[in-house]
């Protein structure tokens, strides 16, 4: 196994949160990581160390993966890993539990490229695909570049929130976003 790791705290920001999203409890400081051909369990152990969170990983069939993360919060990576590995998450007490089985409804994936689009329009498009009700305040002046290939729509949406520095509140399942 060849593993290269660099974890760098870049900056803090207002991050999205939701009461029913187990990943919302994770620290939101963006990190840089690059790992090659590593067992999935090692990656989860690494993320536990980086985030200072206790991970309870159920024994699953062995899988290896390569990943590269730059200036991204751990939750975005874990969403993508969960989709690719077929795993789901729950939050129990102060532990993040990694389950072997995916959620029953697979999350829609994006295969899309957007160049210099108004942020509010791009957010609405991705939210529609993610089937996430959205109410946007502002976000009309910022413009977004987005390339997504086989990316869970929810992860792309969360990445856009982070890059915009938006504040997000979930009220009755509706994401209220303010730039």
């Amino acid at each position, binding site marked *: 196994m060849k593993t290269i790791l660099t974890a760098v705290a*870049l900056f803090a920001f207002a991050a999205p949160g939701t009461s029913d999203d187990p990943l919302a409890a994770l620290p939101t400081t*963006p990190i840089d990581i690059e790992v090659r051909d590593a067992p999935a369990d090692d990656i989860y152990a690494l993320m536990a160390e980086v985030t200072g969170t206790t991970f309870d990983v159920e024994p699953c069939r062995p*899988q*290896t*993966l*390569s*990943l*590269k*993360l*730059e*200036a*991204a919060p751990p939750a*975005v*990576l874990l969403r*993508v*890993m969960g*989709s*690719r*590995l077929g795993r789901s998450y729950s939050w129990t007490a102060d532990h993040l539990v990694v389950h072997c089985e995916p959620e029953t409804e*697979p999350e*829609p*994936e*994006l*295969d*899309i*490229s*957007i*160049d*210099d*689009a*108004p*942020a509010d*329009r*791009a957010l609405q*498009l991705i939210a*529609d*695909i993610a089937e996430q009700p959205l109410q946007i305040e502002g976000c009309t*002046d*910022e*413009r*977004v*570049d*987005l*390339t*997504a*290939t*086989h*990316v869970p729509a929810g*992860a*792309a949406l969360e*990445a*856009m929130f*982070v*890059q*915009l520095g938006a504040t997000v509140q979930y009220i009755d399942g509706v994401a209220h976003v303010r730039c």
Partner: protein
Amino acid sequence: MNDHTRRVLNEALDGAVPTSSEAAADLEVIASRTRQPRRSHAALVVAVAAASMLALTLSRGSPPPVPAADDLSPWMVVQVSVDDRRTDLRVRVRHPSSPTTNRVSP
């Protein structure tokens, strides 16, 4: 994503025209395709993007203006490969003080 769907997508995103039923259908096609991703999509997206950039450059005779680096957020890059299935996500944001003239059109 072909030129037509790219154009419809850009128009819908920019609000240049109201999102018609045809556009909605096209966007749904994009969404439904991605629910059953095929390995060739990544190469196709890259190829379309590269072709668009090349066409734009040739048609203008000069490269599009590039905003100053400090006007753009750093790229957020997420790449995960499992069993030859690869996920790529790249996002960056241009904030209000930035120039907005380097739009890529079909």
